[in-house]
């Protein structure tokens, strides 16, 4: 006899084997582990890595003042804040838009790779890194919201105007893809892989 629980409503069952069945409480399919969790999460992380490049290279915002348009990407935005000695905002934007997405992508990739290649990272550390990635996930949206609020408030045609840049779409997708990847990943397989090896 084995124990198996519904990940959706957390009801625990005692069964003969690990074959899937429908939960009597919430009607969702109960499986031992989420199906193709590693493959789907890895595919999303790889897509997010590809999207991270245009998000950093292309302009995030276009500011028009007296008919003159200046486009700036995330890094240029951070540098301009440093030049204006606005260190707090520079730190917030740099952390939320550059560091956090990078930590999420590298962290998730490291966890996924460590399942197939032996690394020194203990399972407890992997879980800790994963929980941290899950917790900080949504905070990268700050820059997107800032651009949206600025664009909505500064609308004076050619005199003073702020528009979103083409990097906004890639950046928003990086955030969503990494969040879905983290949500879709079943951390229990970290311990399964250790048992197998």
């Amino acid at each position: 006899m084995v124990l198996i629980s519904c990940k959706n409503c957390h009801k625990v069952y005692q069964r003969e084997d690990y074959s899937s069945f429908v939960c009597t409480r919430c009607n969702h399919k109960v499986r031992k582990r989420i199906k193709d969790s590693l493959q789907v999460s890895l595919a999303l992380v790889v897509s997010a890595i590809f999207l991270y490049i245009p998000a950093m290279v292309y302009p995030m915002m276009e500011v028009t003042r007296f008919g003159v348009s200046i486009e700036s990407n995330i890094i240029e935005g951070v540098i301009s804040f440093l030049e204006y000695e606005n260190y707090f905002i520079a730190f917030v934007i740099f952390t939320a838009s550059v560091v956090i997405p990078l930590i999420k992508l590298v962290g998730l990739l490291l966890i996924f790779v460590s399942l197939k290649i032996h690394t020194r990272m203990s399972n407890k550390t992997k879980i800790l890194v994963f929980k941290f990635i899950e917790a900080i996930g949504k905070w990268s949206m700050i820059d997107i919201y800032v651009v949206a609020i600025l664009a909505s408030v500064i609308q004076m045609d050619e005199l003073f105007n702020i528009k979103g840049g083409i990097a906004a779409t890639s950046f928003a997708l990086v955030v969503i893809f990494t969040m879905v990847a983290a949500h879709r990943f079943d951390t229990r397989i970290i311990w399964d892989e250790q048992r197998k090896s």
Partner: protein
Amino acid sequence: MSVDTNKVIECYGCGLFIDKPSVEKKKLFKCPRCNSKISLDKDHSFDSLYYAISSLLLFAILNIYPIVSLNVNDNILKATLIGTVSILFEQNFFVVALIVFFTIILAPVLNSLAIILSFIQMHTRFKLFTDTVLHDAFHFFKQWGFIEVFIISIIVTYIKLIGMVSSTKFDIGFYVMLVYIFCFYMSNVKFEGKNVFGD
């Protein structure tokens, strides 16, 4: 060997099944193997319903007033919650506009509605959705509602704008939003999704 399945709980961090009785008194405990926090079932509180209703009412008020306003050459410029989404649509950023609309408007509102409907369905004979739909909706919209991130973005925008235009100020909408976030957070904290199944 038969196990009382009501007395065990699975840690979704590592897949270990743990006995519940020894930790019954605690609302939160850690898995002995992976150290992940495991939350136990909590009692349903009507406070959650009151907070959810308050959230919805505050959300309606919040949409009337601007969040940030500034004065440039006698032109009063204002930012509203709906305005932040509509401008993205106007500038043809459809994907970003949809993401922003979903995360700051739709998900928080539907989260509060899911809580209110759960209480209505639990305590009356009125059935609009199945228990599964309400349970899933609550968890899904809770995860994808980023209103707390949005308020930090407003503060960042304010600091950014004050450097360009000194007349920038927080408007009524911002203060309503602070109260709204408190009510929204409390409605989620006091609500136990599993209780919609009535077990």
